[in-house]
């Protein structure tokens, strides 16, 4: 069972009378790319948030490498090595690109300036972030632009680049390519594959079925707040999966 | 005396500027004091620079104002200090530059910090109404104390004076309750209403000033208790004396803000004319008890007299 890196059992979350998660299970294996697909409002983002401490589930349990964990905040999850791109991005719009990329992990100058005066190494960080944005194929006119002046895609790239830069154990991405162009999307898919090659499992939420079938090892189908099936792209067609996802077909019909 | 500076155009003192530093002018008492000072100065052909503390106790603004006046080379400053010690260094700085500093209404500690002082003894004022209240109070007095921030010098003086005159101390069982007002009608009324709710038997009301007394009276009237309680106050503004006349206030201790200012300006005039400094130390500008129900052994004047000698708008 140690090959299950991240698991969840029976997660439930109610908001008043809205049911966002309804006895939901989840399994992520070592070294795999797991796609999560589901209708709008199915509860995918809520699941991700629960897995990463951004939402506290009403009930259910979460296990990391078989050990139960209780994340009280995103920081707890991050400390357990889980890096996440949230759908709402979680970028600070008043800060610039570099500040966002290094938020919470700032680099300090070498020597006294850094250790005693705790001075940031801005040139190094600026170089680093320019490189990371470029790696994603994203063009920005100045690395010092504040995030609220960025285009939708540039903004999303900032959030993705941050995770790419810091991933250590599990990478979770909630619709990381929604606002990205063709080329930039491919860049991110390559990034995801690179991460897997480095041995880290990736959870990818996406509405783009071709992308999912292109990179995923397994596909978690989410519907009405719970996982209703797990399929493999090799043995299930997009059409079948979408039919299950939207409720046109029963999951049992998948074999 | 120094009238060579008048319209005759003599260069001597025609471009004299004096500074007037008052407490917060929201209190008409200080407004009256400032205006009387200014009027007296203008009558002598002087220019004035004026400043006021923003709120009671705001000595910082006064320090700043005096610094600005020194920079502007005033010849003298009439100061109503917001704090007895906070202004000492800046006053010293002014005097070191040859500026005559006269405090009015309140004093510095030590009193020699200023060249002279024309002030009112607030403790004495409180004592007068305390004695009057004691003498005219019913058998089993229930006292309400409508105070103002007691760290304010005059407020503390009046409060202590009243208790002394009445012959009791803070915490005496005859004190039904106390409340803090902001020295305004509205806060006086709310405070009195709240006290009355708990103690409908209140029959003596000490008020920090006449607006508070008026508010207290409204509260009493609303409850139909206006006849059963005696209100005492301090100030002697015309509106307050009128209230004495109308029976709203039993007695008030009249003070003379205009006089203080005029005396101060006279002293400055003498100094500028021939260099005679005024007599240092406290020159009391006087306090008079105003009531239409005099009691034995306590000197007082009637509201008629009061209306002729009061300050502020009649």
């Amino acid at each position, binding site marked *: 069972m140690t090959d299950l890196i991240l698991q969840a059992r029976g997660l439930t979350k109610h908001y008043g009378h809205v049911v966002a998660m309804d006895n939901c299970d989840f399994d992520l294996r070592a070294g795999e790319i797991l796609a999560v697909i589901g209708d709008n409002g199915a509860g995918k983002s809520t699941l991700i948030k629960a897995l990463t401490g951004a939402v506290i589930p009403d009930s259910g349990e979460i296990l990391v490498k078989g050990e139960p964990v209780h994340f009280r905040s995103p920081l707890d999850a991050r400390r357990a090595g889980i890096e996440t791109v949230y759908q709402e991005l979680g970028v600070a719009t008043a800060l610039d690109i570099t500040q966002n990329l290094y938020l919470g992990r700032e680099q300090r100058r070498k020597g006294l300036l850094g250790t005693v005066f705790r001075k940031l190494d801005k040139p190094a960080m600026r170089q680093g972030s320019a490189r990371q944005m470029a790696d994603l194929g994203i063009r920005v006119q100045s690395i010092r632009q504040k995030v609220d002046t960025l285009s939708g895609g540039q903004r999303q790239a900032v959030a993705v680049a941050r995770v790419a830069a810091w991933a250590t154990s599990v990478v979770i991405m909630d619709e990381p390519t929604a606002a990205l162009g063709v080329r930039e999307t491919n860049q991110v898919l390559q990034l995801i594959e690179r991460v897997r090659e480095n041995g880290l499992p990736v959870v990818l939420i996406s509405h783009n079925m071709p992308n999912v079938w292109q990179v995923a090892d397994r596909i978690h189908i989410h519907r009405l707040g719970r996982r209703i099936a797990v399929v493999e792209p090799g043995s299930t067609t997009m059409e079948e999966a979408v039919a299950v996802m939207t409720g046109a077909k029963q999951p049992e019909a998948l074999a | 005396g120094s009238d060579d500076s008048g319209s005759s155009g003599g260069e001597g003192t025609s471009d004299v500027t004096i500074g007037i530093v008052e407490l917060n002018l929201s209190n008409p008492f200080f407004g009256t004091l400032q205006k009387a000072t200014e009027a007296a100065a203008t009558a002598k052909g002087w220019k004035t620079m004026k400043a006021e503390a923003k709120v009671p106790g705001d000595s910082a603004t006064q320090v700043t104002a005096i610094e600005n006046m020194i920079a502007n080379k005033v010849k003298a400053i009439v100061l109503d200090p917001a704090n007895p010690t906070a202004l000492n260094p800046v006053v010293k700085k002014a005097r070191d530059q040859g500026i005559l500093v006269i405090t009015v209404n309140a004093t510095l500690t030590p009193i020699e910090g200023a060249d002279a002082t024309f002030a009112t003894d607030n403790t004495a004022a409180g004592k007068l109404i305390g004695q009057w209240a004691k003498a005219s109070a019913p058998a089993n007095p229930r006292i309400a104390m409508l105070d103002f921030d007691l760290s304010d010098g005059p407020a503390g003086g009046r409060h202590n004076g009243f208790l002394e005159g009445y012959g009791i101390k803070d915490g005496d069982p005859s004190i039904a309750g106390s409340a*803090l007002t902001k020295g305004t009608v509205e806060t006086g009324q709310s405070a009195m209403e709240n006290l009355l709710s708990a103690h409908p038997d209140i029959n003596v009301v000490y008020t920090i000033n006449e607006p508070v007394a008026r508010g207290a009276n409204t509260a009493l009237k609303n409850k139909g208790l206006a006849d059963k309680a005696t209100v005492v106050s301090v100030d002697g503004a015309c*509106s307050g004396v009128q209230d004495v006349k109308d029976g709203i206030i039993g007695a008030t201790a009249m003070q003379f803000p205009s006089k203080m200012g005029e005396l101060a300006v006279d002293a400055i005039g003498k100094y500028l004319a021939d260099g005679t400094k005024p007599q240092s130390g406290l020159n009391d500008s006087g306090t008079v008890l105003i009531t239409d129900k005099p009691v034995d052994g306590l000197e007082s004047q009637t509201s008629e007299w009061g209306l002729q000698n009061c300050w502020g708008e009649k």
Partner: protein
Amino acid sequence: MGSAELLGREVTKLDDAVLLDKEDRAGPLRAALSSQIAGPLAALVLAVVIFSATTDSFLNPGNLSLIAQQSVVVGTLALGQTLVILTAGIDLSNGAIMVLASVVIGNLATDGNVLGALLAGLAVCLVLGLLNGVLVAQFSLPPFIVTLGVLSVLTAAARLYTDSQSYPITSEFLTALNGGPAFGGVTITYGVMLWIGLTAILGYALTQTAWGVRVYAVGDNPRAAALTGIKVKRVLLSVYLTAAVVYAFAAWQALGRTPTADPSGYSTANLDSITAVVIGGTSLFGGRGGVVGTLIGALIVTVLANGLTQAGIDSLYQQVGTGILVVIAVAVDHFVRTRQTR
């Protein structure tokens, strides 16, 4: 895939609620109760219970009606303040506007033309509301500074206008709000009725009219509101003007409460009104809250002052108590509210 399928067949366990959701079933009153004002109400009830238990004189009809009367001036100001705060603004000048209006009324009324005086007071409020509104809406200046500047100007203006004297008000019409039907020792003044009436009207305007929706939209996110084609500036202006009308009513209330127009009165009414608004559950960041909460918030503030006096607490300790209790009141509010959304 049409609506029938979505609302019908597809809508299984999770979706029985698109149109007829639970709130609908429970009725609007309960919905309102459960959402916005539960917090402030809990705090108010708690305060009342505590003071009733610890003092003899607090819980009697006379005192309770007194509390209502003592709340009307700041309470009415706080209604206008709520509108401004809902747009993410703040009005530090409301007390000063009211005071200037009341001294203008007091001065003009000495000639005997009380209705004219009252209208002049309204005009004063409208002009100043317009000033605030134009500076905030048209010039996009921060409301905090604009209204602080106006406060400073008006405080001085009221003193200059009155020569720092106060006017006793004798006109029965001007002090009419202090009267009202009495039952035993308990008077329900017209002022209290007016206050509640204004709350109802503004509550209606905020929740039942298009204007109200726009006020919330502008306060929530002015950029988004502008993108949807809302005239943000005009909405802001309308808010400052409506608030000004409410301040004029507050001036009338003030003349009824203390039949004196006093240029130095109500100097902390601005902060008090903000306190009432915030305790009432309206967010200083705009877009969330409402006037009913504010009414309760104003009552809470008065209850604290009244109850502490009833309890015979020394005036300085009263100030200590008020500070602590105000914080506890918002803590209760906060606690109740987060429990709900969990």
